[in-house]
């Protein structure tokens, strides 16, 4: 089945822009990115769009379709009404470069602020041994394709540009959680308490767990329930639970 769809695509750059309307033929089984490519091939050869794998694994084609942050390649046309125009804009939390392409360097800056995995002392490459049950929590977070849809939809930075300096965003707080749950991460031995930095440096307290990051994740990672809330609970152990704090100080609480 084919039909003519109306596409309204935001065209412009950091100096301004507007919506351009196109009519384009839709074939059965296509995704929005197919149609954007058809527009490039037939009507708008200078339309800028970032894409790569077309399989929902590279995280490049993030945009907003009918106001919702989505991957262009993972949004089937069959899920959209054929009678309504398809409105596409670039990610609205980041500076626009041109058309559907945004500057996501905010995310790379935040990634660099998080100290990476700290290897345990006395173990060389190839000597790491971990039990499956100890790593499966972190493995869920490793599914992240860094499409930055969660960063885009999070109202802490989307609606408050001034918070970008103090808030790492869900993707990178999940990274902190991943490392804090890592069975071989030796941050504590190196004098780094990831729970403290999550709250004091990466802005975990700004998260009000409204779950938009989880809603938009194309990898279905349960970011809020499995990363952000457990991290908040770990921070509560450290900062808001005097008995736990005292127990760890006087050695009653053994390391686990």
């Amino acid at each position, binding site marked *: 089945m084919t039909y003519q769809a109306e596409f*309204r695509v*935001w065209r*412009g750059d*950091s100096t*301004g*822009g*507007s*919506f351009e*309307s196109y009519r384009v033929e839709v074939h059965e089984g296509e995704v929005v990115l197919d149609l954007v490519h058809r527009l490039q091939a037939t009507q708008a050869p200078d339309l800028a769009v970032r894409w790569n794998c077309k399989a929902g694994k590279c995280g490049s084609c993030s945009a*907003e379709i*009918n*106001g*919702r*942050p989505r991957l262009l390649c993972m949004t089937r046309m069959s899920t959209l009404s054929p009678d*309504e*125009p398809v*409105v596409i*804009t*670039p990610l*609205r*939390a*980041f*500076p*626009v470069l041109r058309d559907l392409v*945004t500057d996501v360097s905010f995310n790379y800056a935040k990634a660099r602020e998080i100290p990476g995995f700290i290897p345990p002392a006395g173990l060389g490459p190839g000597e790491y041994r971990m*039990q499956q*049950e*100890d790593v499966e929590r972190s493995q869920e977070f490793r599914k992240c394709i860094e499409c930055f849809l969660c960063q885009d*939809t999070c*109202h*802490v930075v*989307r*609606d*408050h*540009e001034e*918070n970008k300096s103090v808030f790492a965003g869900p993707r990178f707080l999940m990274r902190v959680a991943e490392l*804090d*749950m*890592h*069975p071989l991460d030796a941050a504590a031995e190196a004098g780094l308490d990831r729970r403290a930095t999550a709250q004091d440096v990466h802005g975990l*307290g*700004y*998260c*009000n*767990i*409204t779950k*938009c990051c989880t*809603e*938009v994740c194309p990898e279905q990672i349960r970011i809020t*329930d499995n990363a952000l*809330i*457990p991290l*908040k*609970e*770990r921070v*509560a*152990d450290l*900062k*808001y639970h005097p008995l736990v704090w005292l127990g760890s100080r006087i050695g009653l609480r053994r390391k*686990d």
Partner: protein
Amino acid sequence: MVSTETGPPTGTGVHSPGRAAVPQRQLRTDRWWLPQLATVTGLLAFIGYSTWRAFEGAHYYAPPYVSPFYSPCLAANCVPVRGGADWTLFGDWWRLSPALLVLIFPLGFRLTCYYYRKAYYRAFWSSPPACAVPEPHTRYTGETRFPLILQNLHRYFFYVAVPFAMILTYDVALGFRNTGGEWGHAGLGSFVLLGNVALIWAYTLSCHSCRHIVGGRLKHFSGHPVRHRLWQFVGRLNVRHMLLAWSSLASVGLTDLYVYLVSSGAFGDPQLF
């Protein structure tokens, strides 16, 4: 749809300088406001009902059933419940309804619950109203400051919620008597109380703080197999935390209503055996 050329944005939020100059604040075409409307309606209905019942101070004991709003009794002005959890910790100077002494604990547990926080931040405070829908506030500090930093006290309310659930379980056992106090009998109300306490336990145990306490705080599950199993069990319940939050809220209200109807004589409790 505005399609005229727009200059560079100079506002805040999605209209901050450098971002795409899209005139509309949001472009969602679905009914994103519907879940928030349902949340507001549901919570206001419960708040209205429970406020009336909490201040009423009557019709909360229809032997052998006691309303979950009034158990345990911590004041001296309760109707005596045969074998019930009546502890006059507050003495006879307390003149208000005894329910107020009890309800503050489940209220705190639910107010600081991670699910309810999401629900009321979205529905009542519009922070945000829905995903990718701008919030109306000019400033946002989240849970970094007083009073919202107190949300971190959730685990303390969890600690209190467990003995409360135990007391309600005891009340269910008391409900398997007849009006004369003889054991081994049941009416429809016995099973109303039983269903309610099952939902209360499921909601309490599915709590994110519970999940952390039973095992989530560990770095190595392999060294703690029992806690790992407990964590997995709580995790399976935790997936349904929203469903359990609403169903237990509804069941506690309906159970109280059942006791009210029986106590006030509006409905006769059918005796099953």
